[in-house]
Structures are given as C-alpha cells and as structure tokens.
C-alpha cells in the first residue's frame, strides 16, 4: 500500500512535469497549428540558466529556488517569444515549414548547450527540505515531488485564470476554435501567437527548473526526453485542450511509474495507451471532433 502511494505521488509529480511542457505545446498547436520541436530547448535553457544562477547566488536556499523559478520562466518565455517572432512568423500558415524550423532550432540549440555546458549531467542542489521525505499514509515521499506538483498546479491555475478572465485569454480560446473568424472580427490574432509562445515557453522554463530538481541534474538532453512524452500526452489529451493535457499528463505519469516499478515496461504501456486512444478516439480524450 505504501509503495503504491509513493508511486502514485511520484507519478503525479512526473505528470506535473509533462504538463508544464504539454500545456504550451497544446495551446500553440491549438491556436497556430504548429508542432513545436523547440519546446524542449526552452525547457533545457531555462534549467541551465537557472542552474548557473543558483551557483552564483548560492545553492540550497528557498530564496534561490524561488528566484530560479522566476528566472526559468523568464528565460523560457523570452526564448520562445524570440522563436515565434524570428522563425515562426515569417512562415505564417506554412505548417510543415514551421515544424521544420523548430526541428532545426532544437538541433542547433542542443548543440550549443553541449558546447557551453558539456554533454555530462550537471547536478543540482535544492533547499535542504527537498532531500527529506514526508510520511503520507506510511509512504516516505521525497519532498521535491510535492513542490513539483504544487508549482505545476499553480501554473495550471494561472493559465486557466488568464484564459478565462482576460481579453487576450478570450482571444486565444476563440482562436483555438476558429482562428479565421477571430481575424474576421477585426482582431490581430498574431499578437496572440506571440503570447501563447511566451506563456508556453515560460511554463516549459519553470518545468526545466523543477525537472532539474526532480531528476537531480541538468543535461542538454533533458528537454528532448521530456518533450517526446509531452507529445504523447498532448495527443492522448486531445490537441489544443488544456484540460485534456492536464488529465493525460497525470494519467501517463502515474501509469508510467506504476508499470515501471512492477514490470519495468512503463514507456511501452504509454505507447500502447496512445495506440488504444487513437484507435478508439482519434481526436484524443478531450479533442475537438474535427
């Protein structure tokens, strides 16, 4: 029982990381039809810059951790906004070419990360409290799991409030549904494009900081390995659906942890789940019926 609880919470923690990547992917795809392969690079850059900063201002304190979260979000958001502006916008509406430039960017970015920080893992150190465990119904759960889950939940809450309560949020929701009609109401939808990239990049940057504590290290390949599961999550959840991404993230994370522990086949089960979802509901759990 205590093992199961540990697996459950760890799985939700992993799902929280997936969600931080998948939420941006899903919104970007939903609004713009762009599959963003560079999203992992946003995450990795956020993680590396935060790691550098925390070494400068002193690792292991709560203040440093919170500052790095802010830095991760800022770095990821700015990188993403620049990407949208310089690479995506010139290829407006040419979806395949847009995918291709993000592929090229991710290749180049990972190569630069390797050049600057080396190919080896760089180990991170969070506040002392992270390394301790908390007793949950007999299970000794590492504290960093809770931090990951809480921060991801706050990001989810923030994004939902933004989408529901602000005019730009309204434009994004309308644009995900029918972009050309938004322009036909006299709204310049391109501003929303930059915005979703920025939000997605910031979420990924936060994800990078959290992942570096969850896994205990940063490496140039960090973003790429999370990205693939985030892709799976967005397809299972339904492209363009934030709620779908949230649910699928948790389902995939938990499933992966549990099967990995008992049978060592977590990654396969996830892909089988993907195949099953596609065969029964090609639009994903919460996807629009196209």
């Amino acid at each position, binding site marked *: 029982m205590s093992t199961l609880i540990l697996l459950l919470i760890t799985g939700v923690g992993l799902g929280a990381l997936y969600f931080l990547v998948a939420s941006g992917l899903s919104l970007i795809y939903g609004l713009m039809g762009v599959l963003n392969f560079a999203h992992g690079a946003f995450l990795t850059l956020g993680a590396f810059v935060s790691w550098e900063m925390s070494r400068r201002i002193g690792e292991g304190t709560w203040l440093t951790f919170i500052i790095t979260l802010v830095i991760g979000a800022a770095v990821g958001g700015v990188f993403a906004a620049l990407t949208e502006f310089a690479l995506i916008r010139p290829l407006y509406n040419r979806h395949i070419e847009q995918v291709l430039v993000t592929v090229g960017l991710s290749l180049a970015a990972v190569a630069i990360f390797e050049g600057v920080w080396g190919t080896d893992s760089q180990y991170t150190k969070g506040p002392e409290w992270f390394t301790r465990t908390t007793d949950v119904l007999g299970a000794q759960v590492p504290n960093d799991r809770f931090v990951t889950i809480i921060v991801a939940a706050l990001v989810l809450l923030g994004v939902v409030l933004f989408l529901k309560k602000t*005019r730009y949020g*309204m*434009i994004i*929701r*309308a644009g995900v*549904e*029918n972009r*050309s*009609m*938004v*322009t*036909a*109401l*006299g*709204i*310049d*939808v391109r501003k929303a494009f930059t915005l979703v990239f920025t939000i997605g990049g910031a979420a990924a940057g936060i994800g990078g900081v959290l992942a570096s504590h969850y896994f205990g290290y940063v490496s140039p390949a960090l973003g790429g390995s999370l990205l693939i599961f985030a892709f799976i999550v967005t397809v299972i959840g339904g492209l363009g659906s934030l709620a779908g991404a949230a649910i699928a993230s948790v389902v995939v994370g938990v499933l992966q942890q549990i099967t990995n522990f008992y049978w060592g086949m977590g990654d396969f089960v996830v892909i089988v789940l993907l195949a099953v979802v596609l065969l029964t509901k090609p639009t994903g759990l919460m996807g629009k019926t196209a």
Partner: protein
Amino acid sequence: MIPENIEPILRVQGLRAAIDGSQVVDGVDFEVPATGITALLGRNGVGKTSTIKSIIGLITRTGGTIELAGERIEKVPTHKIIQRGVGYVPEDREVFSALSVAENLKLAERDEHPNRQLVDELFPDLVKRAHQAAGSLSGGQQQMVSLARALLNDNKLLLVDEPTKGLAPKIVQEVAQALAVAAQSVPILLVEQNLAVVRQLAAGAIILSGGKVVHRTESATDFLNDEALTQRFLGVQSEGAVEQSADTTSGGML
C-alpha cells in the same frame, strides 16, 4: 427602391482569388450602392461565398482591385479591413461554441460605444442567455449571435452570407426583420438562397456564375419576376422555391 446616385460603398474590379490553386473567383466586377440591401445570387458553388471571403481577405486574392468607401483594400489584411468598418456574418454562423454568448459579443466589440441597445432590442433572447455557451444554442439563436456580432459596431458595410440557411420559417422572418432594421443605417451585401427573403429585402442584385458576374440588376424583384432570367441564372422557377435544391449538375464553376 432604386439606389440614389451617389458613390458606391464597395467597388470590386477584376477580383480573382484561389483556394489550393483552384480559381474560385475569376475576375469579378460589381459595385455595392451606399444604401439598402444588394443581393449576391447564383447557383450553388458559383463562388458567392468565395467572393465575400476574398473581399475581406479570408481567401488569398490573386488579382483585381477592391475599394471600400473610395479606399483601396485589396492588399490590406483581414483584421484591418474589418476595423475600417466592415461587419461580416459568415455562412455557417461560426460562433465560438466554447465561449459564452456574452464573450462572443464582447470579442466582436470594436467601437468604444458599441450599439448594445440596438442588439438587445433586436435579440432579447440573447440577453437572457448571455452566460450560456454559444455552442449549446439552437441554430437560430446562433445566427442571432452571429448577426449581433456584426451589428454591435458602426459599420460602413455589412457582408452577410446565407443568414437563413437551415432555419425554421419563423426564425427566417426574425432574421429578415433584423436585416431590414440594420439596412436602414448600413448598406448590406447579402448572399441568400431563399428567394422570398431576397424579394422582401433586396433592392439591386448581382448574379454570379462560374466565378464571374453574369448579370446585374437594379431591381431584384424585376429579376425574380423574369422567368427566363431566373431559369437561366439560378436554375429555378421564378416564383421562388424556398430552398433552392443543390444543383450538382451545374458544373459551371472552377
């Protein structure tokens, strides 16, 4: 009913537009007078919707000129054309189904002082349903939302594409009434298959075939009364069939 002899609000010359390489608008010329309702008629698939969409740049324009109130707009992006004072009511209503009625209307507001009162008077139903998701409304109510989005702002021109399509007769009359009220203050270019509605509302008419204008008239009623003309251009008996049947053998386009 004959429009006053002043500058037209919209002048389209040699307009061409293509979708995926198919020429769907093939050199269209016409003018829309600055008052009243002008009908854009033709069989299914002759490019009526494409013409409307290419005027506001929703379809890539490949040639020709468009003047709105004397200003060239054929190279202006969609949202800027709309901001210059064009209201667009699309063929299939295209309300944002996940957004509430209020949000749909809020999104459409361009002016500092939108014509809330007019819209609320015309469509009292929408006031009651302000917080309902637009996707949960009936087809008629969705059409009201779509019309309301256009009527909220002060426009120079309304482009209204098949507003009565698929609606019950009672609702058709409500929509026609709303258009008649709107037409008192703004010129309308109306695509409409329901010839009874055309008869009721339209002053002039423009008839398309094969992506081109084949006939113009200053009196839609005279045109509809001319059996030979309606048979030739619309493929229907003159005394307006309510819903023109889909004419799959026409093949006159593309």
